[in-house]
């Protein structure tokens, strides 16, 4: 075994020990702390019923056919052309945000919710009436602390509570 190799073995072990004794953890304690995303984060989508002009651009631009125009039951009258409003299917949504970007009246908005899970396929479809009620709330055991990720020269990422 050459001297050079021995030195490199020692260096590797020393680096390992250095990290074993230092406390440079990067972990976000997820269910107790949640990350507050920067503005413009593309999470689940909020729908404003009143400002929507039912143009259908969002459904047209949706790459995954997740956004669809549903017949709005309260507004449609019999015999007349049905009124259609957008609804979303999170089972297909790819969170590209094209629908939000194209909406001419800003009736669709991003929220920062992105950690919802479902038990069944059906509850992931949000027709307009359900879409209006807002985004689903993720389940937490107790109220989590909101943290903001701060880039750090020494530790890469650290987290600071948001007031």
């Amino acid at each position, binding site marked *: *075994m050459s001297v050079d190799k021995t030195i490199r073995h020692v260096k*590797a*072990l020393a*680096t*390992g020990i250095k*990290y*074993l004794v230092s406390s*440079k*953890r*990067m*972990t976000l304690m997820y269910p107790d702390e949640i990350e507050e995303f920067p503005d413009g984060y593309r999470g689940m989508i909020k729908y404003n019923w009143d400002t929507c002009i039912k143009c259908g651009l969002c459904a047209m631009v949706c790459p995954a056919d997740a956004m669809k125009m549903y017949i709005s039951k309260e507004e449609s009258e019999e015999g007349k052309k049905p009124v259609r409003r957008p609804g979303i299917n999170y089972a297909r949504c790819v969170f590209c945000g094209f629908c939000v970007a194209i909406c001419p009246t800003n009736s669709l908005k991003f929220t920062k919710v992105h950690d919802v899970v479902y038990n069944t396929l059906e509850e992931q479809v949000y027709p307009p009436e359900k879409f209006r009620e807002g985004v689903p709330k993720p389940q937490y055991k107790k109220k989590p602390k909101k943290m903001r990720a701060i880039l750090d020269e020494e530790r890469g990422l650290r987290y600071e509570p948001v007031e």
Partner: protein
Amino acid sequence: MQDLLSFLISLLFRPCIFIPLIFPGLTVIFIMLLMIIWLERKIAAKVQLRYGPLYVFKPLGGVIQTVADLLKDLFQEPIIPKTVDKIAFLLTPIMLFGLAYLPTVVIPVSPTFYAFRSDLSLLLLLTLTTLAPIFTVLMGWASNNKFSLIGGLREGYLVISYEIPMFLSALSMAVLYGSLDLVDIAEAQKGIWGLFLNPVAGISMLVLIYMSTGKFPFEIPEAESEIVAGAYTEYSGIMYGLVMGASYVKLYVLSLVYAILFLGGWNPLPASMMDNPLLPGAMLFAKAFILIAIGVFLRAVYPRFRIDQAMNIGWKMALPFSILAIFISLGIVTITGGM
């Protein structure tokens, strides 16, 4: 009633029962297993900038994670594939665990507390530890799975490359102390530890212990990214728990042996404390535990060697070094006229 109870307790503290059942036997092995697997994950996690098991019992850092894993293993369906050789398949995990555990009966806890003392106890111990790999090879064959087969064969190849130098390194200490009795060897290290007298043997033995128990960088027979889990691929449930535990038990036993051969066993304790086996035992255990902890820490530092490289290390480095170690021992014996 009272008499019976005290009789039972006194029975329990008899060496021939205490040693196989309590320390270094089953009870301590069990606690050690639960601790060491958790510790392995925690140490790796710490080096890797994260926490490791935690939420299972948060106040103590998830220390009972292994208990949960054990429960899961216990209640998991033990699958016996149709194509396996049933008897060999079922027998091998038990044999593996049993043979890994068996050498503990030979290990003395203090100069006066041992289950078994013989002039040849070191030889007996080394022989018993070499038996386990045979069952790993058998396991690879019985599983009737290509990855298992390769894993078994790798173990087979490795055994012959680490066993001989390990024997030689261990025996060099026997040469040094002029005895094959573990109690004598430990007692002889009252002054200087074996490691400092013959560092060549000490270092090569340490490397070979990690090699024989499949610790990094020698985790070759069960190299997960190459051959899934090697010989253990087909095992599920509690049978997998057994085979996984066996390699840790082997590490534990070899670490105890190493502590006795090179780290002075229960020394340095004053002679007055030797009457009660508790303190010497704790001393021995602490030394072994440090060795185990180093072994599991290596996971965080090293990738794994290829089998030919490991065999090269066995044959081209460890073997010459261990032969050199014997000569060093002989030299010391010649100069000092026996320890």
